[in-house]
């Protein structure tokens, strides 16, 4: 058997087993490259407001001898930030491993958020026009798309194209992540692409063996291409005294 025949035979047999994975690779790969990654990440779902802090509205100081202050009320506060919650100036900090959000005007503790506040925050950040469908407080067993370090968090689902969900931390009132079907599909595509259906980890043995054989199959395929396209029998054949076999 010559190289052409060997290549054809093994290309065919390898592809009998690998063909479906090639289809999966190309479908998932095409999906991942065609959809812009920033769109996939839901960046277009988010307003990313640039509302500035108005210092004049801050009447609850960090430290004060004369009045109630944050240090006084929360003596172990750490990782302090000052920012906005919708239209209010708020302090966010951590004390004894618990996140707090406190109104910087009044000193009123705003965390944990109730459904109304979480929904208001989600609507404030959401760029779409769909209505809030449901809001659900997740305290344990987060879905795959939400890291457990953000718990507890409100999942606010919108009635819109791609079923977008915004996750609002119940403790800080911050938007922690967002998802829509295109990202969820992307996650699925990625796990299919790397053949790890649980952790999306490319370093797995299944992928190793399949890629190894796929590489052999592809090289054999290129041998076929070479024969079929570049070493093709010349178009011109002897026409005299040739008895073509019918």
């Amino acid at each position, binding site marked *: 058997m010559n190289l*052409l*025949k060997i290549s*054809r035979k093994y290309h*065919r*047999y390898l592809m*009998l087993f690998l*063909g*479906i994975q*090639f*289809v999966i690779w*190309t479908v998932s*790969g*095409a999906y991942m*490259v*065609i959809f812009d*990654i920033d769109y996939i990440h839901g960046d277009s779902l*988010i307003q990313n407001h*640039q509302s*500035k*802090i108005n*210092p004049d509205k*801050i009447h609850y100081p*960090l*430290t004060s001898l004369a009045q109630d202050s*944050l*240090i006084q009320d929360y003596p172990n*506060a*750490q*990782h*302090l930030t*000052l*920012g*906005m919650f919708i239209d209010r100036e708020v302090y966010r900090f951590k004390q004894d491993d618990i996140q707090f959000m406190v109104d910087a005007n009044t000193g009123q503790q705003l965390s944990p958020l109730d459904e109304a506040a979480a929904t208001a925050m989600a609507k404030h950040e959401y760029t779409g026009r769909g209505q809030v469908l449901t809001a659900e407080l997740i305290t344990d067993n987060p879905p795959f798309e939400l890291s457990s370090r953000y718990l507890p968090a409100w999942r606010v689902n919108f009635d819109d194209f791609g079923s977008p969900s915004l996750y609002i931390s119940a403790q800080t009132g911050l938007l922690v992540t967002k998802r829509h079907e295109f990202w969820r599909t992307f996650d699925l595509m990625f796990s299919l692409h790397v053949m790890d259906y649980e952790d999306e980890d490319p*370093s*797995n043995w299944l*992928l*190793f063996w399949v*890629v*190894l054989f*796929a*590489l052999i199959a*592809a090289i054999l*395929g*290129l041998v076929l*291409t070479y024969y*079929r*396209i570049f*070493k093709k*029998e*010349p178009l*011109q*054949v*002897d*026409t*005299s*005294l*040739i*008895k*073509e*076999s019918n």
Partner: protein
Amino acid sequence: MSLIKTIHKWLSLLVGLQLLIWLGTGLYFNLMDPVEASGNEYRVRVVEPNANLSQLIEPKKVLQDFNPAVTLSQISLLSKPYYLLTHDKALYPYFKNQYTLVDALKGQQVFINEAMAKQLAIASYNGTGKIVSAIKQSPPFDDRLKEKNPLWRVDFDDDINTSVYVDAGSGRLAAHSNDDKRFVDIAFMLHFMDYTQEGSFNNVQIIVFAIFTLFFALSGFIWTIELGFNGQYSLSHLLPKRFIKSKAKIVQVLDLNGEPLHNISLSDHENLLDGLIHHDIALPSSCGGGGTCGRCRLKLTPSTSTSVKITAADHQQFTPEELALGYRLACQHNSDEIDSLRLLDVIQAEKHQLVLTSSEFISPFIKELKFKTASGEPIAFKAGAFMRFFIPAASGNTMPTALPLALSQHWENVDQTQYQHDSCSRNYSLANSDLPLDGNHSELHFTIKLHQAPKTTTDDIINPGVGSHFICNLQPGDSIDAVGPFEEFYAKPLSDKSMVMIGAGSGMAPLKSLIEEQLFKFETTRPIHFFFGARSEADLIYQDHFTSLAAKHDNFFYHPVLSRPTGELASRLASSDALQLIPSTMTQGYVQDRLAAEFGGITDNAAGLTNIEFYLCGPAAMMTSTIEQLNAYGVANDAIAFDSFV
């Protein structure tokens, strides 16, 4: 289905190499060490002590002193507390952000200077290297394609050339990078086709390639399914024979005329094309069994033809009528499917090694080649038979070697070029009989026309006839493999009937063979008429040979006809009647004209049409019109034998 195959073939050319890159880099990502790939080999987590908030300046005051901010964050850098004001807050730290860093104890703006950047870098580094440089750079960064903020790049002189990147606005530790990471980045660049270094896999080129590759994979997938349905996958085909207890399958092989040749034993599920080769039956094939060249044809016997499936390749190569008659491609079927098969041109395929004894030009473009067998054993054949030569892959030249000077004028307009050709097989008719002559032991003679490449208007270079050029350039003493003889065109059983042979151009060879067989081997006295058409005197091969045969044998009549005579003969013909009816004398016109002129006399001498056999060999157009002409005279089709060359 053929569209699917065409798509698959051409897409493989387009995306093939990139596919190898994808698979190769994919394998690398699978195997690479995740720590090396992250660039964090010498990175340590920086733990800053918590600031004592009661000592800090009031945030309100900082916000009043500086530009309006979206957030104010209390952070610690190198164990000192700061307030980081973010004026423009992007979704991600590596997107473009606008910061002011303020000393949280003094309330003064602080800038990340070189000394501070170096200290921040060292704090995150546990390697043995020393800092060699610290440079503040603006995007883009080779190591951090997505980063949009100005960064300090702090280089260490360790074994892997670690670079630490510190955000020049916020003091944030942006990343570690090193040579391992840079190598991974190259692999990612290749995998993502990110040749313009956008730091993204959403670039135009990969989208285009992804779509092409998608169609490539789908076409291959459909092809695979089609192969599966056609039974092209079997365990016995995949595994070496010794692993399989193969049952022998006896298949009856019939010759062209349906006569049983022999029974051959094929293994279970053995491909017919491959199986026949093992029994010295070499069907022609230029694609090697891919079902694309359509040459390995055979015909199934009526009992089995209806039950044997028709593959897509069969559909491609045969008309529905032919399929209904049982025509199939041998490469598409296996021994399980059939009990007997009929060969379409191979009657016996004995392999011979032939040695060239002489090679002479007999016209500007036709050579006479003489071979003997390397074994010395004569080959017996019926006149009119042909041999199939195996032309090996070689390089050729459009100009023949050893071209006599006298003929060089005919080759002047041929461009001399070199070309490579693949191996192939070519059939050439024998031009003599198998009777040993003049003490020579059974030579095999061939008259082979050197086929020139057609002139094209495009720039495409088309090779000349690779088979004829190869074989005509052999030197005496060279040997070549051939199988045969294949006897498809031959004289009817010896009788007293008249023979009329009509040939033109290089279709002379099998007729010459028949004539010599009749005159020399059988020494017949039956009338033999040979009508031979050529273009001009230069093309009138074997003129002297036939003229002298006609002189020597009273029963042999030679009728050469020239369509475009040149030189002296043209002027002589012009001065007299264009159709002189003198045997063995050249006339001007076509063989059909000469035949028409002579036909009455020949029939009279033979006492009726039924006593004449006709043998034709020449270009298709000449044969078609001659057959029509003979039919018009009332000649039955079974009295006409013809040898086609296409």
